[in-house]
């Protein structure tokens, strides 16, 4: 064939659909014949023309569980699909590539972060947070909690606890509302703090005792004033965030309970006393460290937990009974819920993310497996703008963004469908490392206004955000 002869334009029938209710076409255009030379941008224009949007939105396109990153023609060739058949093309608001916005320096490893903003859970539970007044709280291995504004100004720092010369390294921190912070860590105590924005102070208001090994993660539910603590001692506690609603603390766990400990505590006593209390419920059943426990979205009488004993469990918080258990092949290190596809996402020490259907009648252990991380996956959060989006933080020094619609069949037995990440974010100024040395990410949170906030061994809180559309 002569090389200068331009082949006739190939066309293909496509049928456009979306899972986003607010973005459905008012009239179904049916199958549309389009040139196979089209790419994402032209398809995006086409969708906008059907939607008759005043300001066009950028869209991404999924065909057979894969994002279109080339022309339709190349996609068909790569996947061995004939242009004769009608393609089902799913459109979804485009994820804007997140770019590095800022990093906040700490004195030590940063173990946990949380965001206070209009869109974050704590922001909806407390006073309204005006745009630009978002706050980040961080917990560090140096034992201190810090509140930051988005310009990187440290607005307030907590005082070290008087815990009888025990380690004070923190593992996790949460906003309960705009005035209350909860944190916990290696000394096994959960602490509630008052944050005074005007005085710029973080003052301890309550100590909660129920654990004898470190508290790995916390979850909070302000409407019921409840805190879930996941501990390495194999148990989960349900605490109240106020002293008046709480039972007495178990004596044997108090720093004043033993002679040696009490002596050390008195030596360093600063005269201030903080009320100590115990737990409302202790959830027992896990046989190894509990990595994370969360409230079921929309029903705070139910909790889910992930443990290093390889199991995912569902708990009835009213009775403290374990009502369901799923056993996986690996230690589980973190947990988040995706309410719309009704999936639990859990990160493993075996470098992947497992998605499981928590409903009792689901038979498969794993509905999906997300692969790509090079080391343990230790933190997960939802995409605030997509029910199908996830962000993960790993000891490999990366944060990855995933879309659970972007999956292919054909994993190993029991793995379900397999997915790859949509974006990979590294630490500012450092490359991914499978050994994680110096770059491990410990926590990640994602919120629409603020972006993706993460922290780790590099002693930094890092913010990444998609550039505004």
């Amino acid at each position, binding site marked *: 064939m002569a090389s200068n002869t331009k082949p006739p334009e190939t066309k293909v029938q496509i049928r456009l659909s979306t899972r986003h209710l607010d973005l459905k076409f008012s009239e179904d255009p049916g199958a549309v014949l389009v040139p196979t030379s089209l790419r994402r941008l032209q398809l995006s224009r086409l969708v906008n023309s059907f939607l008759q949007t005043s300001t066009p939105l950028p869209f991404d396109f999924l065909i057979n569980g894969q994002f279109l990153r080339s022309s339709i023609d190349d996609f068909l060739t790569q996947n061995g699909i004939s242009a004769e058949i009608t393609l089902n093309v799913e459109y979804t608001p485009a994820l804007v590539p997140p770019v590095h916005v800022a990093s906040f320096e700490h004195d030590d*490893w940063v173990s946990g972060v949380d965001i206070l903003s209009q869109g974050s859970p704590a922001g909806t539970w407390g006073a309204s947070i005006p745009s630009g007044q978002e706050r980040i709280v961080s917990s560090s*291995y140096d034992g201190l909690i810090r509140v930051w504004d988005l310009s990187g100004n440290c607005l307030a720092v907590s005082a070290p606890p008087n815990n*009888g*010369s*025990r*380690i004070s*390294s923190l593992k996790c921190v949460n906003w309960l509302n705009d005035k209350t912070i909860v944190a916990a860590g*290696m*000394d*096994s105590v959960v602490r509630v703090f008052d944050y005074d924005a005007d005085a710029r102070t973080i003052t301890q208001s309550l100590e909660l005792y129920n*654990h*004898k*090994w*470190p508290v790995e993660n916390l979850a909070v539910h302000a409407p019921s004033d409840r805190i879930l603590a996941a501990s*390495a001692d194999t148990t989960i506690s349900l605490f109240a965030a106020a002293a008046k609603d709480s039972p007495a603390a178990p004596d*044997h*766990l*108090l*720093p004043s*309970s*033993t002679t*040696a*400990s009490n002596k050390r505590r008195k030596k360093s006593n600063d005269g201030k006393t903080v009320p100590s209390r115990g737990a409302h419920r202790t959830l027992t059943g896990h046989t*190894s*460290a509990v990595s994370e426990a969360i409230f079921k979205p929309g029903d705070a009488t139910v909790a889910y937990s992930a443990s*290093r004993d390889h199991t995912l469990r569902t708990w009835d918080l009213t009775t403290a009974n374990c009502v369901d258990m799923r056993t996986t*092949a*690996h*230690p589980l*290190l973190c947990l988040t819920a995706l309410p719309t596809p009704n999936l639990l996402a859990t990160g493993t*020490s*075996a470098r992947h993310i497992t998605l499981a259907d928590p409903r009792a009648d689901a038979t498969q252990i794993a509905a999906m497996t997300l692969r790509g991380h*090079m*080391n*343990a996956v230790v933190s997960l959060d939802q995409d605030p703008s997509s029910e199908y989006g996830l962000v993960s933080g790993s*000891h490999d020094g990366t944060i990855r963004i995933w879309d659970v619609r972007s999956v292919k069949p054909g994993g190993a037995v029991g793995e379900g469908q397999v997915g790859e990440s949509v974006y990979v974010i590294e630490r500012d100024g450092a490359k991914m490392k*499978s*050994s*994680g*040395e110096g770059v*491990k990410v*410990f926590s990640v949170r994602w919120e629409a206004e603020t972006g993706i906030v993460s922290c780790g*061994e590099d002693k930094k809180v890092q913010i990444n955000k998609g550039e505004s559309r």
Partner: protein
Amino acid sequence: NIDPESLLPKLPSPEELKPFPTTCAAVFRGHEGRVRSISIDPWGYFLASGGDDGVVRIWELLTGRQLWSVKLSDEDAVDAVSWRPGKESTILAAAAGENIYLIVPFAILSPDVEQSSRDLLDTGWGYAASKPTATNGVTTKEPPARWSRPGIRLEDKGVLVQIAVRSSVKAISWHRKGEYFTTISPRGQSTAVAIHALSKHLTQLPFRRLKGLAQSAQFHPSKPIFFVATKNSIRSYDLAKQELVKILQPGAKWISSFDVHPGGDNLIVGTYDKRLLWHDLDLSTKPYKTLRYHQEAIRAVAFHQGGLPLFADASDDGSLQIFHGRVVQDLMENATIVPLKVLRGHQVKSRLGVMDVDWHPREPWCASAGADGTCRLWN
């Protein structure tokens, strides 16, 4: 013409024998000079390490974060560290020079775990005084060991007991119930092997005369049997009857270490002459299998103790080798041994490579100690 190889039973492939450690998941940096010994605690949360800098360190296993440290000696290396078995209390034994230390690292413990651990160490104070060893006017010999409080600097850190023996200690190993532990002082001659009783603060020397230089010792996992390795052989003794049971002859020039399979009937032996030997105690006093995979001396060997059919060795060539080792209860069937993976990452320093290896209590993870000053977690 039949290929004799085809008559042998086919070994399973490593892919079928997952899970086993394949990748370095964390690097533990902080020791100055060689790391000599490591131990993962019974919960699997902490890694303890001891090295040429005379310091014992405790690290968070999953992150590599150093949580605690104490300097035990200005002159001597910490040659051995070993956590006491049992999840209710947390006690670390460490040896530097001629001293063994028992440590309750209270800074990383809750008050009740601290208390139960202290109680275990405190019951023995005064025991020796209440049981005078001099009777009927016979002058007592120098006791084999002196149990004492190590002084305020160390006690303030949780180093609560110091046991001074007569010769430098190179190895520590606990009995599974946590009441007894044994220490090895290779140059100690009649005091080379010592057995210490925690609740009585009492040290006994079970062997008047030991043929050869002692290297390592282990309690049988379930029977009152005690194994002692010298340079060339491993002897097992019945502790109840106080008699020799068996002499294993690995055929090695110099044994560095050995470990007992949790079932109790199989043993692995590492040698400075680069070989790893598997002994089936039911079969013979000679090794059932000889494995030659390393370019340099093997310094440490370890069986997984938590139910996984895995074992590992550590070598001066800078690598660790991971093996599948399945023991079948059936007497007619021998153990299946399959090499699975070589783990590389440690640097060789002054011809020394990996000094020690230990397994996680449940997971298919192991940790290693390097002459390069690092520890590593593999999963």
